[in-house]
């Protein structure tokens, strides 16, 4: 990349490391997608618990969201990755199994899913509360079951209210996956670390993956903006 080198390899874009970095991107995207799915499950359970009539469920969900918001992602990641390793192995030891190695992909997706589930809990809770109560009452009055009310009345309208918060959490989460390189996930940051060490051109590679992250977040914003417009059809905006 730098013009003052004479090495013929230097003429190649990113010294030929682009395919390796794109493979890292695949792992970054896979981790993000799986974490998001886990986060949605935690988020829906959390929102359900916060809105439920049971006091125990309320307290459990409040503890969950408060605890997560009080800690840095990296610390939770290290706690769950290293702590979980010891815990699982002491369990495996009692069960007479051999040494189990937690893989950073599983530890990473579980932890990120758990963390962002707490943030999605608040997003989903707000979205459900934004739907007028009369609508689910009307659904029940028509003889729909609670499941039908949830599926036909609540969920389709909840999407519209949840999308801005959801978009935000997704963007924060993609960026948080970069931290997984610290616990040894072979993601895009890890590939950039390797390429930097081999070529002694760290700036080039960190700038390149920075550009790729930016492209991913930009595409996400455009796509989710389109989804929001799709689910808001027929909703009139205030015009000043």
């Amino acid at each position, binding site marked *: 990349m730098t013009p003052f080198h004479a090495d013929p390899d230097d003429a190649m874009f990113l010294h030929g490391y682009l395919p390796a970095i794109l493979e890292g991107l695949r792992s970054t995207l896979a981790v993000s997608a799986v974490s998001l799915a886990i986060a949605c499950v935690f988020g829906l359970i959390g929102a359900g618990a916060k809105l439920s009539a049971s006091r125990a469920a309320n307290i459990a969900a409040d503890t969950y969201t408060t605890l997560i*918001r009080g800690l840095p992602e990296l*610390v939770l990641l*290290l706690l769950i990755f290293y702590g979980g*390793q010891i815990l699982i192995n002491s369990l495996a030891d009692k069960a007479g199994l051999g040494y189990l190695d937690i893989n950073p992909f599983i530890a990473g997706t579980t932890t990120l899913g758990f963390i962002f589930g707490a943030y999605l809990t608040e997003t989903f809770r707000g979205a459900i509360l934004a739907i007028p109560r009369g609508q689910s009452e009307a659904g029940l009055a028509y003889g729909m079951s609670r499941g039908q009310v949830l599926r036909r009345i609540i969920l389709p309208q909840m999407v519209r209210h949840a999308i801005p918060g959801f978009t935000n959490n997704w*963007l924060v989460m993609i960026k948080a*996956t*970069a931290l997984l390189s610290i616990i040894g996930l072979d993601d895009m940051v890890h590939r950039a670390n390797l390429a930097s060490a081999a070529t002694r051109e760290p700036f080039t590679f960190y700038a390149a993956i*920075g550009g790729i992250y930016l492209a991913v977040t930009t595409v996400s914003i455009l796509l989710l903006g389109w989804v929001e417009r799709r689910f808001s059809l027929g909703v009139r905006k205030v015009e000043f």
Partner: protein
Amino acid sequence: MVDWALIAESWPLYLNGLKVSLILMAISVSASFLLSVPLAIARVSPNPLLSKPVFLYTYVIRGTPLLVQLYMIYFGLAQFEWLRESAAWPLFRNAWFCAWLAFALNSTAYTTEILAGALRQTPSGELEAARSLGLSTFSIYRRILLPSAMRRALPQYGNELVMVMHATSIASAVTIVELTRTARDVYYNNLAPLEAFGLVAVFYFVITFTLVGLIKLLEARFLKHLRPKSADPRPA
């Protein structure tokens, strides 16, 4: 189960880490606050030559991970020979300077957007009234727009402070021995992850909720006029 002796033995190390984390946060937040006031004013300016570059800056910073930004500054800049030979090199070789720069630049982007959002919510009557009184643009910002925008921005700015506090844990990746690095060292030396990371979690938890409490106090002071009035106002 829990090795209390290890906790008793290592917690003075954590106090030192706590000091480092708090200093790192304080210097980053001060710099970002000073930078983001002029940038937010430029961001809401009707002149695209002022607002567009600021938008580009906040968009790029907010669209990339802080870890990558930190690596770019701390590991990346060493690539450039002209920088290595310049007088500024001792600074860029220093992990503290790089971490401060990365955190300050990162937080500036978020703070600028928070402040710009609050400026945009100014009731137009306030601005018209200020103009009709013949105040200069500088006075309008200093006396009318910024004080009220900063009040409105307070709850979100509190979140940003917590984010910066949590982001300082990333400095552990560039040799700075703050809270998280302390925990990682205690973990590597004793292989006791629950004690090492559990204790650091308690520290972060306490700092986070102290910060949240302080912001609540500021909100009670500066956003008093927005609190719902009591249902049966007693005569004063």
